């Protein structure tokens, strides 16, 4: 016999219950509540937010790592120097499951970096910085003016760029070419406001080839689209108020390097250079206002703002941008102490981004899945190609994979059941046929968990980890619990 104590109207009421008492909120979601009238008030029952901590309440072994929780990370492996900001290396991340399986890295250069950077440019609001070059534009202080007017964010940080007299092109461009993944979509955008010039071209180019879109800054429309064989493009223009527009060029390229460029235009349908820049004879006094340039992979996060302020590479706005551990693909990894599950089932929830399709370990149980029984592996890409791969093994290996090319952001849910001969992997909650291959016998044995590398010596992850939950159990999780954990990881990842 159990007793449920309910306090109402200042009185405690003991309710004897013969078995477990459950209060069901039908058709409810997290945060919903109902009010049960009692006495002259009400008893409120609220559906609490899901926490991964709930997955470990029966003593299940495993880990829960949460890079969005700065208090759980230290810059050194001993835990003496806390992580306080992005762009700090992480030498120790605490296991929030309660099992004490913290992950560390003793070598400073091999530590992943806590990061929340999405804009690939630098000095996004400082076109007078050396990160930008001018051609056919008067130098800042000699006709062009830094911080000349109010920007869309209300600060006095928008620059005036003024064309030179004569010449053909009147452009501001990145000093250093970008290294691009070929046939992969990027978005280059800039906030622009009409000055004495009322048209602008947003352009991408190599030395001899390029593509651009011309925008009318009075009507807020794209007026000329200029393509080439190397580039596939589309565009958008969005009003930011007060005459400002964010002019965006979405492009993919067959070449691996490119420069991005903001071009003053004398017309909404200008004459063009071979690489699709407006060309005309400037008057030495006309110009327009620019601010807030941004270049990013088009599929990099679905819930983050379209513009991220950045100065130096490590100085950027983090508000609204999801943090992650960045693994450099060369030597970064973290490792736990030995874990002893004693059971034959595992569930893995991972928020990840892979930058390239080179085999990389997200999480591996033991120093080498191919060599060790009672282990599992979760990889971003593999020797077989562009995929995510999960392997679960008792004394025999069962492999399941999802095919998707890099770069890609994903919430991966992997479940391994040795005695049930089932290995399942889903990406972004999409159905994927499980594997029923024989996994042999036995439990998951006692091993360390490696994150970002096989055994710390190879198969390096070139990508990000937004969150990681690994839970060993004697019983499988029900669909509701899996969905909750998956949803929780996606809030941290922004994959879909």
């Amino acid at each position, binding site marked *: 016999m159990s007793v449920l104590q309910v306090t109402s109207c200042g009185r405690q009421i003991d309710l004897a219950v013969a078995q477990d008492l459950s209060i069901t909120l039908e058709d409810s979601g997290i945060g919903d509540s109902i009010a049960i009238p009692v006495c002259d008030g009400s008893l409120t029952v609220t559906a609490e937010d899901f926490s991964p901590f709930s997955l470990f309440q029966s003593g299940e072994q495993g880990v829960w790592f949460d890079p969005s929780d700065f208090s759980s990370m230290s810059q050194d492996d001993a835990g003496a*120097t806390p992580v306080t900001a992005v762009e700090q290396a992480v030498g120790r991340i605490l296991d929030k499951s309660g099992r004490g399986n913290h992950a560390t890295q*003793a070598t400073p250069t091999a530590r992943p*970096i806590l990061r929340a950077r999405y804009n690939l440019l630098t000095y996004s609001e400082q076109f007078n910085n050396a990160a930008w070059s001018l051609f056919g534009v008067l130098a800042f202080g000699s006709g062009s003016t830094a911080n000349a007017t109010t920007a869309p964010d209300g600060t006095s940080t928008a620059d005036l760029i003024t064309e030179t007299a004569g010449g053909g092109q009147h452009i501001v461009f990145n000093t250093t070419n970008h290294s691009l993944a070929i046939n992969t979509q990027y978005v280059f955008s800039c906030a622009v406001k009409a000055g004495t010039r009322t048209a602008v071209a947003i352009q991408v180019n190599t*030395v001899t080839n390029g593509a651009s879109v011309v925008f009318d800054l009075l009507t807020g429309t794209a007026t000329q689209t200029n393509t080439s064989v190397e580039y596939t493009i589309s565009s958008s223009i969005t009003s930011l108020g007060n005459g400002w527009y964010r002019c965006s060029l979405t492009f993919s390229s067959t070449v691996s390097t490119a420069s991005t460029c903001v071009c003053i235009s004398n017309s909404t349908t200008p004459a063009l250079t071979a690489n699709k820049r407006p060309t005309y004879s400037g008057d030495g006094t006309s110009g327009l206002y620019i601010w807030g340039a941004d270049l990013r992979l088009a599929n990099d996060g679905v819930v983050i703002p379209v513009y991220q302020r950045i100065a130096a590479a490590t100085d950027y706005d983090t508000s609204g941008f999801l943090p992650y551990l960045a693994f*450099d*693909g*060369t*030597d970064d990894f973290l490792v736990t102490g030995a874990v002893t599950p004693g059971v034959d089932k595992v569930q893995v929830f991972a928020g990840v981004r892979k930058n390239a399709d080179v*085999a990389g370990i997200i999480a591996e149980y033991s120093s080498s899945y191919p060599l060790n029984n009672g282990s599992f592996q979760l990889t971003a890409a593999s020797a077989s190609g562009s995929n995510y791969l999960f392997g679960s093994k008792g004394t025999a290996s069962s*492999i399941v994979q999802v095919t998707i090319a890099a770069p890609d952001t994903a919430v991966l849910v992997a479940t391994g059941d040795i005695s049930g001969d089932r290995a399942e992997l889903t990406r972004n909650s999409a159905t994927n046929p499980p594997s029923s291959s024989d996994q042999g016998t036995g439990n998951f044995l006692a091993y360390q968990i490696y994150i970002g590398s096989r055994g710390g010596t190879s198969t390096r992850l070139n990508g990000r980890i937004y969150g990681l939950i690994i839970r060993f159990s004697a019983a499988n999780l029900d669909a509701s619990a899996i969905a909750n954990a998956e949803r929780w990881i996606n809030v941290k990842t922004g994959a879909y």
Partner: protein
Amino acid sequence: MAENFLTLIVTAAHVNLARNLAASFGPGGAGMWTTPLSSDGAEPATHYVSSGMLPAEFADMVPTQTWQHDEDGVWTMIASTPGNPAAVYYVAQQQGVQCTLEEVEDTLATADVTGQPPFTAFARLGLQIVNPPDEVLP
């Protein structure tokens, strides 16, 4: 403690000494340069890389280079720092690392050390990571 992000690439001929020199500076220097590189991604490795945050006082000891694209998109070195091979040699001697000053100087002089992301540095040098064959899929 201030830290600098660096990508440090050393030649295979100098990697053993580089590892010993780094380890002589303390436990944090151990385990560097474990990732092999070559022009075609196959053995044998011609270079090794470490990449990440390095305490500023250690970063100042290694020579660095700054690269930038010229107007034709060609990499051009626009700045460099000499590092401090004498200081590195001194610490190595204190820790019993067997080497000469000339060997330390040669190791540092042939190293490519930049603030570039590692894969940008690889592309500039025409290198890629050597992946062990058939180790991921059983």
